[in-house]
Every structure is written in C-alpha cells, then in structure tokens.
C-alpha cells in the first residue's frame, strides 16, 4: 500500500518511473512543439523562395507522398470549400494540411488525458477490486488512454513513413551548396586576377568572368534557399519523430500502470500519491492548452 510519504513518480527517469500518469519528459511543454513553433515561418519563407525551382519541387515530390507542400493559404481555401476537412479520419494530402491535422489530433489526445484524469475520482465507488477493474479499463481497455496515445503515435509514424527522405534531402542540399560556394570562390578569384591585366582581350575575358560569377552567384543563392527549406523540413520531421516517441512512451506508461495490482488501482490514494494524479492532471491540461494556442495560429499566412 502506498504511504503519504511516497512521492509521485517523476516523469521519464528510471524504468520504474513508467509507473506514473505524469506527462513523459519526451513531451515536456513546450519541447514537443519547439521545432514546429519556430519552424513554420522559416519554412514558409524558404519554400516561397524556392517554389519556382523545378529541381526543388522534384526533390520534394520524391520525398513527400503527395508532392504538395501546401501552406496556410491553401488550408484556408480548403476550409472555405469544406470546413470539416480537418475533422475527417483521413488527413489532407499536402504536407502543411497533414501537419495541422496531426496537431489537432495531438490536441484532442492531450485534452482527453486532461479531462479523463480530472474526473477519474468519480469511478471510486464500490470495492477496491471492482474499482481496480474499472480503472484498468480507463487506462488500457478498449478506447482507453493507452489506445488514445497509441493512435497518435501511429499517426505520427504514418506521417514520417510518407516523408522519409528529409535528412537525405538536407545532406544533398548542403553538399550542393558547398559545391556552389567553392565554384563561386574560384570565379571570384578569376575575376580579381583578370582585373589587373590591361588589354582589350583581357577586358573581354574579365567581362566573361564577371558574367560567370553572376551565374554562379544565382546558383549559390538558390542552393542556400534549398538548404534552408530542407533544414526546416528536417527540423519538422524531428519534431514529429519526438511526437511519435513521446506518445509511444505514454502508451507504455498507461499499460504499465494498468498492470498494477487491482487492489492498488482500486485506491484513490494510489493514484494520488504513487501515480501523481494531481500533477498529471495539471500537466496534461497545460500541454493541451499549449497545443490549442499553437493550433489557433496555424492559419496565419505570414
């Protein structure tokens, strides 16, 4: 039996810390949103800059299933045509719409954890054994919290499966950018060399060298834009990877808690003192509110 001196398990520590309802460290506010929160404005700017580049569009199309980057304006247009679009079971095909769809699912899952834990004391009627069975169902039964967490982990994994090349694209873009930098450096040196030679022929050669430099500068700028775009996309991918991991850990936590002795699960004090019910309720509520605020800004175009 738990005692009042026992502290609620801290999130994400040793293996035994899985015996907690508290938010795992992988999902610590605002960590899960960090990449996406800082990434989207940069991503949109960078993508606007490189959207005219056929090579970028080809790379993006090969990396993301639908080949459609989307964006807030496209999402507004989509909601103007069908306002229930983000409520559907299947996500929109474009990258941005899909990310927002996933963010709404994260919000719903966090809110479900929050309101479930808030009202959990209402089930404590009857014998500890009876209550324990009910508590186990809340945690890991059909439609229970482990299912909720597992669903989000699955959706995040599906997202990543359709966008597997973000890291490789970034590597390729960085290599291309380095090559462009070297070419630009060589051309600059050539221009400086030609400038000092005073003849008509040398002037013509220098003029050609300057033209060549202009061309290489364009390549350099375009490659820099691709690096930015793919870097932000890779950053977003990492955020979704963190999301998938965090909800997988949450699912495992709920399953671990559900495997506790029924007599323990039948005691409200076990939830309060051993599983950190009060702290967990506050943490999940705070996380849901953070994601809610984040989602509310996702239709702003720039």
């Amino acid at each position, binding site marked *: 039996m738990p005692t009042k001196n026992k502290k609620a398990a801290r999130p994400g520590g040793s293996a035994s810390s899985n015996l907690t309802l508290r938010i795992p460290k992988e999902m610590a506010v605002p960590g899960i949103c960090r990449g996406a929160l800082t990434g989207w404005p940069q991503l949109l700017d960078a993508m606007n800059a490189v959207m005219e580049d056929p090579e970028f569009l080809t790379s993006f199309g090969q990396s993301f299933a639908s080949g459609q980057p989307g964006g*807030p*304006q496209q999402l*507004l*247009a989509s*909601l*103007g*045509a*069908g*306002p*229930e679009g*983000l*409520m559907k079971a299947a996500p929109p095909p474009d990258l941005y719409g899909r990310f*927002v769809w996933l963010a*709404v699912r994260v*919000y*719903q899952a966090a*809110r*479900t954890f929050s*309101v*479930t834990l*808030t*009202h*959990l004391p*209402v*089930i*404590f*009627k*009857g014998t500890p054994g009876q*209550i324990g069975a*009910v508590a186990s*169902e*809340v945690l890991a039964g059909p*439609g229970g919290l482990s299912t909720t967490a597992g669903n989000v982990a699955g959706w995040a994994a599906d997202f990543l499966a359709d966008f597997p090349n973000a890291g490789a694209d970034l590597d390729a873009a960085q290599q291309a950018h380095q090559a462009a930098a070297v070419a630009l450096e060589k051309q600059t040196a050539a221009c400086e060399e030609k400038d000092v030679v005073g003849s008509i022929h040398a002037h013509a050669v220098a003029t050609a060298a300057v033209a060549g430099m202009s061309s290489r500068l364009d390549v350099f700028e375009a490659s820099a834009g691709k690096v930015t775009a793919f870097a932000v996309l890779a950053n977003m991918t990492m955020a979704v990877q963190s999301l998938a991991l965090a909800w997988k850990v949450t699912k495992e936590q709920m399953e671990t808690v559900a495997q506790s002795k029924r007599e323990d699960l039948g005691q409200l004090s076990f939830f309060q003192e051993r599983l950190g019910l009060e702290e967990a309720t506050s943490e999940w509520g705070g996380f849901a509110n953070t994601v*809610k605020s984040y*989602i*509310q*800004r*996702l*239709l*702003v*175009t*720039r």
Partner: protein
Amino acid sequence: MEQDWNWSANWVPSVNNGVLIPAVGQLNIASAYTVSFQLTQIWVTADLPNYNTNLLAALATINQVDTAIINAGGVETPAQAAQLTVTFGAAATILQNNLGEMNSALQKIAGFLNWQQQFIGYIQAQATSVQTAITTAATNAENNLIGDIACGDGDVRNSFNGMFADVAAKFAAMQTPFNAVNSNFQVALNAGALVAGVFLPLQGDSQLVSEYLASAQSYAPTNPLRQLKLNMAGSLWAEFVSDANTQLGTSS
C-alpha cells in the same frame, strides 16, 4: 522659323479616381469582414446559448434517470430505457446542429480570407501598372511631337524628361503610404486568420464531446465508466462554450 509647340496632360483625376482610390478602397475590408463574421456572431450570441441550455438539460435528464436506475438496484424500466435513448439522441442532434452552424461560420470566414489574399501587394501593382501606362502614353506623345515639329526636338525631350522625372518622383513618394496601407491590410488578414484559427480546436472539442457521449451511452447506467464519460462530456462542453464566448463573442 520659330515653331511653337504645346502639349499637356492631366492624369490625376483618372489615376486617382479610376485606379488608386478604388485600389485603396479594395483594401479597406472592415465592412466586408463584418459581413463574413455575421454567421459567427449569430452562432455565438443567438444560437449557442440555446444549444448550451438544451444540452445541459439533456445531460441533467440522463443523470437523473441514471441515478434513479442505480437507486433501484440497477433495474431499468422500459420507460427509463426509452427516455434515455431519446435523450442521448437529442443530445447528439444538438451537438450536430451546433457543429454544423459553427462549420458554416468557419467556412464563411475562411472563404473571405482566402479571397482577400490575392489583394496583398495589389495597390503597389496597380501603381506600377499606372506609372508604366503614363510613361508609355507620354513617350508616344513625345515621339509624335518630335515627328511633327521641324526642329528643336531637344527642347521637347528636355521638357518630357522633366515630366518623367516628376511623375517618377510622385510615384516614389506614394510608395511609403502604399506600403503602409498594404502592411495594415496584411495585419488585418492575419487578425482574421487568428479568428479562423480559433475554430480549429473548437472543432476538436466538439468532436470529442460527441465521442464521450456516444461512449457513455455504450455503458450501463450502473457502470462507473458511464458517469466518467458523462462528466468528461459536460466539462469539455463547458470549456467549449467558454472559449467560443471569450474568443469569438462580440465582447472579446
């Protein structure tokens, strides 16, 4: 022999009244925004209070009947069963109607914002277009004059160059206020997009309340999970109503 020439043009009325003033007017979206927001206002101020009253009444009825069944040792009469079925159905319909009205409001705002996006940078584009048209028309007039007069084309060119410089300076001077108008327009659209964004978690909440109620109905009145799901639905609905009022209500 001295040859006099004279040429004049006044583009101010046509440029201002025909192009630039209407373009600035296009970016004044206050009244159009109000129109696009009307469905939201009707929903939040007129209809949501009724949905709220009716849903709370339905939840209260379900709780009363459940309590009576529990007090009777879990035995449910046919009348109670029928009442519960009807009341759960009524609650689901209330939520569906509320969601439908909310979605229509979102659709109106999203459609409006999407349409207005095309006018970002509109006034600058119009100014550039007008300046190009003026330069082209004046250049044609200049060339015709040079062809018409026997000599002194240098005088014509000097006069026109002076005019081109004047036109360029006037359009350059307009850029700063035009940029400010465009910037304010962008700020207004962003504010509208934030309002539209408020709907997204509200949609999520509405969907969850419906799911919690459906889940509650799947359990027997004596099962504690039913009370848990009903409480979850009630508290999330209360938060939904509060968010809608504070973030979309006219007092917000």
